[in-house]
C-alpha cells in the first residue's frame, strides 16, 4: 500500500511528538554522554580545563584493573543470581500451579518479597548478617557452618553470600510469576494424555513441562540477566562494594566515578562501555530467544 505525499507528511506530523520525546529523553542524552566521554572533564580538577582527548578515556578504562574486575564480577554475579532464581522460581511456580487450596493467598505470600523496596530488603539482610548479633550470622555459627564471630561482610568471598541471598529472595517471586504464566498456558489435556500413556511425574515434567515452558524461561532469563547486570542498590546498601572492592559491580564503580569523583569524562566512557555491553548481549539474546520462540510455536 502506498501513501500519497500529503498522507506521508501527515503521518510524520502524527509521530513527531513521539520522536521528539524519544530524542529528548534517550537519544540526546546518550549522544551527549558519548561526546562527554571524549573529553577530559574532571569537576574536581577544574584547572585542567575540558580538553578533547579522543579515545584516552577508553584506553584508560581498558587498562583499569578496577574496571575489568568489576566487569568480570558483574558477569559472575549475573550468572550466579539468575541460575539460583531460575531454579527456585521454577519450584515456586510449580508449587503455585499445583496448589489446590488457598491459591490466591499463596500467590500473595510469594509475591510479597518482590513488593518490598530493594533498599529496605537489603538493609534487613544486612542486619541479619552483620556483626556477632545478626540473626542469620549467629544461626549459621550455631549450626557450625562458620566460627562464632565470623564477619560475613569482611571476607571477600563470603560477602557474596548475603548479597546473593538477598537478591534471590527479592527477585525469585518475579521469576516465579513469569514461569507461572508459562505453566498456565500449557494445555492440561497434554498431561491427561501422558498419564494415559503411563508417563510418571518426572517424565511429564521433562517431556511436557520443560519444553513448553521454554519461551517463558528464556524471557525470564533475559529480564533477570539484564537486571542483574545492572545490579546496584542491593550491593550499595549491603557492602558498598567492600571489603576492598571485592563486591563492587560495574554500576557501582561507574556511579562512584561519575557522582563521587565527579570525573565526568571518564565516568561517561565507563557508562558507554556498559551500555554497549548490555546492548550487544541483549541483541544476541533476543535473536536467540526470538528464534526459539518461533520454533516453540506449534
Amino acid at each position, binding site marked *: 500500500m502506498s501513501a500519497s505525499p500529503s498522507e506521508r507528511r501527515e503521518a510524520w506530523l502524527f509521530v513527531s511528538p513521539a520522536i521528539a520525546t524519544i530524542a529528548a529523553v534517550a537519544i540526546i542524552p546518550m549522544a551527549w554522554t558519548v561526546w562527554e566521554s571524549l573529553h577530559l572533564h574532571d*569537576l*574536581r*580538577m*577544574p*584547572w*585542567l580545563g575540558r580538553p578533547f582527548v579522543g579515545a584516552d578515556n577508553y584506553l584508560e578504562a581498558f587498562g583499569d584493573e578496577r574496571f575489568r574486575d568489576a566487569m568480570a564480577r558483574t558477569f559472575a554475579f549475573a550468572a550466579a543470581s539468575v541460575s539460583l532464581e531460575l531454579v527456585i522460581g521454577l519450584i515456586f511456580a510449580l508449587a503455585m500451579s499445583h496448589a489446590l487450596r488457598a491459591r490466591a493467598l499463596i500467590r500473595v505470600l510469594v509475591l510479597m518479597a518482590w513488593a518490598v523496596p530493594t533498599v529496605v530488603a537489603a538493609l534487613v539482610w544486612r542486619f541479619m548478617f*552483620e*556483626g*556477632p548479633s545478626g540473626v542469620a550470622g549467629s544461626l549459621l555459627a550455631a549450626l557450625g557452618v562458620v566460627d562464632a*564471630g*565470623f*564477619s560475613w*561482610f*569482611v*571476607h*571477600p568471598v563470603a560477602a557474596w553470600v548475603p548479597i546473593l541471598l538477598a537478591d534471590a529472595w527479592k527477585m525469585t517471586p518475579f521469576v516465579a510469576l513469569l514461569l507461572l504464566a508459562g505453566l498456565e498456558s500449557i494445555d492440561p489435556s497434554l498431561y491427561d494424555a501422558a498419564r494415559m500413556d503411563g508417563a510418571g511425574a518426572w517424565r511429564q515434567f521433562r517431556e511436557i513441562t520443560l519444553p513448553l515452558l521454554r519461551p517463558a524461561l528464556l524471557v525470564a532469563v533475559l529480564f533477570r540477566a539484564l537486571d542483574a547486570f545492572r545490579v546496584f542498590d542491593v550491593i550499595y546498601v549491603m557492602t*558498598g*562494594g*567492600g*571489603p*576492598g*572492592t*571485592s563486591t563492587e559491580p560495574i554500576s557501582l564503580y561507574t556511579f562512584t566515578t561519575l*557522582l*563521587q*569523583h*565527579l570525573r565526568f569524562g571518564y565516568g561517561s566512557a565507563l557508562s558507554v562501555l556498559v551500555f554497549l555491553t548490555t546492548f550487544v548481549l541483549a541483541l544476541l539474546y533476543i535473536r536467540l530467544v526470538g528464534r526459539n520462540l518461533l520454533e516453540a510455536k506449534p
Partner: protein
Amino acid sequence: MMVRAVTLALMLLAAGCAREDRRDVLTFSGSAVGREADVLRTQLARFAAERGIRVEIRATPDSADQRHQLYVQWLNARSPEPDILQLDVIWTPEFAAAGWLLPLDRFAHDTADFFPATLEANRWQGVLFGLPWFVDVGMLYWRTDLFDRAPGTFDDLAGGAARALRDGRVRYGLVWQAARYEGLMTVFVEILGGFGGAILDEAGAVAVDAPAAVSALTWMRDAIHREGIVPSAALTWQEEQTRFAFQTGAAAAMRNWPYAYALLSAGDSAVAGRFAVSPMPAVPGTGAPTGALGGSQLAINARTAQPDEAWAVVEYLTAPEQMLERARVVGQFPSRASVYEPGRGLEGVLGIDPAAARDVVAAARPRPVTPVYTQLSEILQIRVHRALTRQQEPAAALHEAAREMRALLARSGLAAERTTEGP
C-alpha cells in the same frame, strides 16, 4: 539528580529575581539541623542587630559527600552565592586550587590564637583560604577500671586490651572505625603518625610505601587477625557501632571523635565515670601521638559581590564568644587555643576537662593538604581495607597504593610543581 537540578534552578532563579533589593543580604551554606541550626540562627540574628547585615541560611544536605557535590556544582557554575561556605577540613585545598575561594590574608591579620594545625589545613600554596570554625579530633577513649594509666604506646594499648580480653572483662579489646570510608583514613593517619610515618612527606611526595607505613598497617592487621584485640566486625564499623560497643561496656578501648564523650557520660551509659580520654598512642622516639584533624571551616566564595561584609560574618562567627556559645550549645570544640584557658567558661561545658581537651587538640594533624585529597584517600581506603581483610599483604597493598597515588598526582598536574618521583 533531577529534583536537585530543578531545586537548584529554582533557587538560582529566586536569587536572581531578588538580587536588586537584597544588597545587604548574604547567604550562608552549611549544616542547618538541630541545635547547630539554633545556635547559628541566634548568632546571625545578633550579628544583624549589631551590624545591620542580614545573613540567610541556605540549607544543604547533611551528608558530607552530598554537600560537597552540591558545592562543586554551584561553584563550578560560577554562582556568586552562597557568599559564605561551611567547608569540611579536607575540602579547603581542593576548592582553593580550583579558584573558588577568596584568599583571606588581606582580612585575617591576627590568626595566632588558632591551633597551628587548623590553619595549616586551610592554607594552599601558602595562602589562607578558610578560618577554622570548630575542630574535631580523633582520640583514645580507655576504661579507667581496665587500664592503670593512659596507654601512651601501642604496646601499652595492645597489652592492656589483651589482658582485659583474657580476663573475660570485655568482649573486645579495642574498637575503631575500619569500614571502607573516610573514617578508616583518619584511623590510619593516626596509627601512621604514631609510627612516625605520613601519607605525603613534607615536599608533598607520596610516602605511604615507606617502612614506617608498612609497620603501621601491619600492626593494624595483626591487632585484628593475630592478636585478636580488635574484632573483625570492626572492618564494617563506623563511629556509631564503635560507640555502642564501648558504651555498653563491651570494649576496653576505643578510637573516636569528641562527640562520644557526652553520650558516654550520660546516665544510661554503662561506662559513665569509668573512662577517660587521651591522645592516640605512639612508638616512643619514632612517632608522635597523632589525632586526625576534622571539623569545619568558614570560607568565602571567590565570586561574592560583598567580600567585606562576608568577612565580617566570618570574623564574627569565629570570635571567641561565639565559639564558647557553640561549645555550650552543641558541644563542638573551639578552634582557638585561648578559649581553653581557665576562667574562660569552658569548664564543664565539653564534658572533658579543658586542659585535657586542649592537649588532645594540640596533637591533631591535618590529613594531607592537597586539592586531590579525596581521590588519594579513596585509593588508600581500598588498599588499606584489602590489607586489613587479608586480601593483600600490607607492603604490597601500600606499594600499589603509592603507585596509583603517584599516577593520580601526575594526572592532576600537581606533580609538576612538586617533586613526586617514585623510587
